[in-house]
C-alpha cells in the first residue's frame, strides 16, 4: 500500500539549528548558553544575514515557531518559504532574554514538496542598534 502525504510526512518537525545549515549568510556562530537547548546560533549582525533549512512539507496549513534570544541589538526575523515571507518575529528588546517563543501561523502550503525555510534579518525595530539574529530551535507544526 502506498502511503499518502498525510500518513508519511511528519506533522511536527523539529529543526536543530546548531549544525551547519544547508545555506547561510553570516549566520553560523554557535555558543553555549545556560538556557533551554543549551546554546544558540548567532548571526554576525549584518543586515540580511540568513539561514536556511530544507524541509518536506505536506500540503496544508502550517505554523513555524521560533525559540530565540531577544536583545537590544537584535533585528526582526523574516520567516520565509522559498523566498516568500510568511511573517516576522521581532527579536528586539531593551533587555536580554533567552527562550522566547513566537509563532508565525496560518502558513498555507499548496503542494506537498521540499521547501527551503529561511530566516532573514532584513529589518529592525527603530530602537534596535543592530540586525543580529539568535536562535535556539525551530519547530514546524501542521495544523490542518
Amino acid at each position: 500500500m502506498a502511503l499518502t502525504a498525510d500518513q508519511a510526512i511528519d506533522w511536527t518537525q523539529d529543526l536543530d539549528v546548531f549544525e551547519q545549515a544547508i545555506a547561510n549568510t553570516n549566520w553560523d556562530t554557535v555558543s553555549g548558553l545556560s538556557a533551554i537547548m543549551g546554546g544558540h546560533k548567532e548571526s554576525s549582525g549584518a543586515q540580511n544575514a540568513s539561514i536556511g533549512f530544507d524541509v518536506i512539507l505536506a500540503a496544508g496549513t502550517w505554523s513555524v515557531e521560533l525559540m530565540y534570544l531577544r536583545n537590544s541589538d537584535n533585528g526582526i526575523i523574516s520567516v520565509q518559504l522559498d523566498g516568500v515571507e510568511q511573517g516576522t518575529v521581532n527579536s528586539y528588546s531593551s533587555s536580554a532574554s533567552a527562550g522566547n517563543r513566537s509563532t508565525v501561523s496560518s502558513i498555507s502550503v499548496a503542494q506537498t514538496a521540499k521547501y527551503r525555510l529561511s530566516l532573514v534579518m532584513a529589518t529592525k525595530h527603530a530602537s534596535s542598534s543592530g540586525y543580529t539574529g539568535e536562535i535556539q530551535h525551530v519547530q514546524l507544526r501542521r495544523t490542518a
Partner: protein
Amino acid sequence: MPRVRGGRYPATSTGRAYPNVGGVRGGRFPATNTGVQFPPAAAGGLSEDLLDWLVNIGVFETAISQTNWDTLAAQTDGVYAFSKDSSGAQNDQINFDISLAAGTWTFELIHVQSTDRGIYDVQIDGSSIGTIDGYAGSLTRNVRTQITSVNVAASGKVRLKLIASTKNASSSSYVGSIQHCQFKRTT
C-alpha cells in the same frame, strides 16, 4: 529477481535488482531493509524526494544499541547542555537506526574534544563513511565536524554506527563524547 508488486521487501532481496515499477525507477534492494515497505514510490504514492532532507538524531536517549557508550555528562556552555560519553575502552560504539532517501548526504557530528578522546569511525550499515578525531590538546565543546559526499544508493532504514576503534597518537584513551548528530541531503 524478486517479484515486485508492492508490499514488503522479500527476505531474499538483499542486494538484488528490482525493475521499474509504477513509474518508479528501478534499483537495488538495500542490504538491511527486509520487512520494510516497498516500493519506495509507487504510482500515486510518495516519491523519494519527499522523504526527509534533514535528519536530526538526538543522542541522549538510550540508543538502539551500544557498547559502553551510554553515560550522560553535563557540559557547561555546551549546546544541549550535555554529552553522551563512552567508557574509554577501545571499540566502544553507539548505533542509531534512521531512514535515509537515496541521494548524497552530509553527516555532521557535534562533539566534545579533549585529550583522552578516540577517533570515531562513522559507519552506515557496517561500511565506513569517514572518521572524526575527538582528540584536542584542551577541552573544546561544540566542535562541529562534517563528513561530506556520503552516497546512499537506495532509500530505506540504515544503521548509523560510531565506533571508537582507533585514536590519535597524542590521545591518552578512546573516549567518545558526542552532543548531536545530523544528516543533510544535498542532492
